[in-house]
């Protein structure tokens, strides 16, 4: 999982497709429009078509389809218990819920894989308290900084027999010591980051970039496609 997650930041920063060039605001509007159709649609055919269309958009945005689809599968795997407990004996309800889950997850992955995180969080930071807006920005930044270190640590633990599978309590204790090291490392890193921010004249707001609202002709695609999704939803299912 962590390997796939680490790729998301690379896709967002290094990509140069038409979708990447659209502003964060227009892509967020696209997500809001399409999500509203996902939430209100009761047609498996519409949702299946939407999922296929999202896969095409992922490919057009030059984001690798396999890892992106894999990321969108996680909630389906974890919500299986819930869906199983609520099964009513028909195939329509599980299909509907499955397609809703898949489509909304892929939608989020498409947004985050084509939008650099400073642009993504800048509009959120404008409408939330400082602790939340800047916290989200710094969390995302810290996560991608930490993930490679965490991967190396798990590998080292496995190689040295810390997670051998011979005794679960011992394994969890080893995992705990590894996580303890990550806590100490993260604490030291956060103190260094604060010192750097202080030296650079931190004035109480971290996330101040303005690219998220720089509109261009590339914004027409997300807005038009969002409108098409709404139109199709009403055309196929009515109100």
């Amino acid at each position: 999982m962590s390997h796939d997650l680490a790729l998301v930041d690379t896709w967002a920063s290094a990509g140069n497709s038409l979708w990447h060039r659209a502003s964060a605001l227009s892509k967020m509007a696209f997500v809001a429009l399409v999500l509203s159709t996902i939430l209100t649609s009761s047609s498996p055919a519409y949702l299946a078509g939407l999922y296929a269309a999202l896969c095409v958009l992922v490919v057009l945005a030059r984001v690798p389809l396999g890892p992106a689809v894999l990321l969108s599968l996680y909630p389906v795997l974890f919500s299986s218990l819930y869906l199983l407990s609520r099964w009513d004996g028909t195939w329509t309800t599980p299909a509907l819920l499955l397609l809703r889950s898949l489509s909304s997850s892929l939608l989020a992955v498409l947004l985050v894989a084509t939008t650099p995180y400073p642009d993504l969080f800048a509009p959120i930071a404008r409408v939330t308290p400082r602790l939340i807006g800047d916290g989200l920005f710094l969390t995302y930044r810290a996560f991608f900084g930490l993930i490679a270190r965490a991967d190396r640590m798990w590998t080292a633990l496995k190689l040295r027999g810390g997670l051998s599978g011979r005794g679960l309590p011992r394994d969890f204790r080893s995992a705990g010591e590894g996580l303890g090291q990550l806590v100490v490392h993260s604490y030291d890193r956060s103190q260094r980051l604060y010192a750097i921010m202080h030296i650079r004249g931190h004035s109480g707001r971290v996330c101040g970039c303005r690219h998220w609202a720089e509109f261009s002709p590339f914004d027409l695609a997300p807005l038009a496609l969002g409108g098409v999704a709404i139109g199709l939803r009403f055309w196929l299912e009515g109100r």
Partner: protein
Amino acid sequence: MTHLHIADGVLPIWLWLAGLVIAAVCAGVASYRHRRDRPDRLTLLAALCAVMLAAMSVPIGPLGHLSFAPMVGILLGPGLGFVAALLVNGTLALLGHGGITVVGLNTCILGAAMVTARPAYRLLRRRLAPGRAGALAAVVALTVSVAALCLVVALAARGSGPAGAVLASDPDLPGMKATGRFVLFSSPFWVIAIVAEALVTSSVLSFLARVRPELLP
């Protein structure tokens, strides 16, 4: 296991909207109360959220993973702990791991563990060593969180509404029966997850007590 991995479009609209409102109010109050904190608390909050996200990549069987919520709750305290729950769930939703609309409910469920963890730890710490106090505090915090999760599932089964509430409008599946079935299917995983989380929390706290005691409350 102790937060709701349910994607968008599964729960009734009124329920996830209520979750968003409750989470927004609680996070707003917490942000207001911590507005005069030293600025380095913000970087610490982000760093511990990142550790939580990294810890979530540790699997517990095929359907669960560590949450690290009690540990971070003990280190940050109730207010910042709730904000951390919001930040972690917001990041997870963006990465396709859980729905965007259920961020509020997930925050309330995970936040319940984080808010409870430090008071329970402080109470137990009077009589026990950090490791044991942390393990028991993790059990208390996660039990509260699981109770919140069951409450959400029970409410979802009771509700009715428009197209968004597919499950809630099923007349052949009474709410209590569906909730009972969910608890029955999930409880073995909860027990395993809580024991694993308690062992990990105990281990991390013992480690921190040895190498960085100043980090502990």
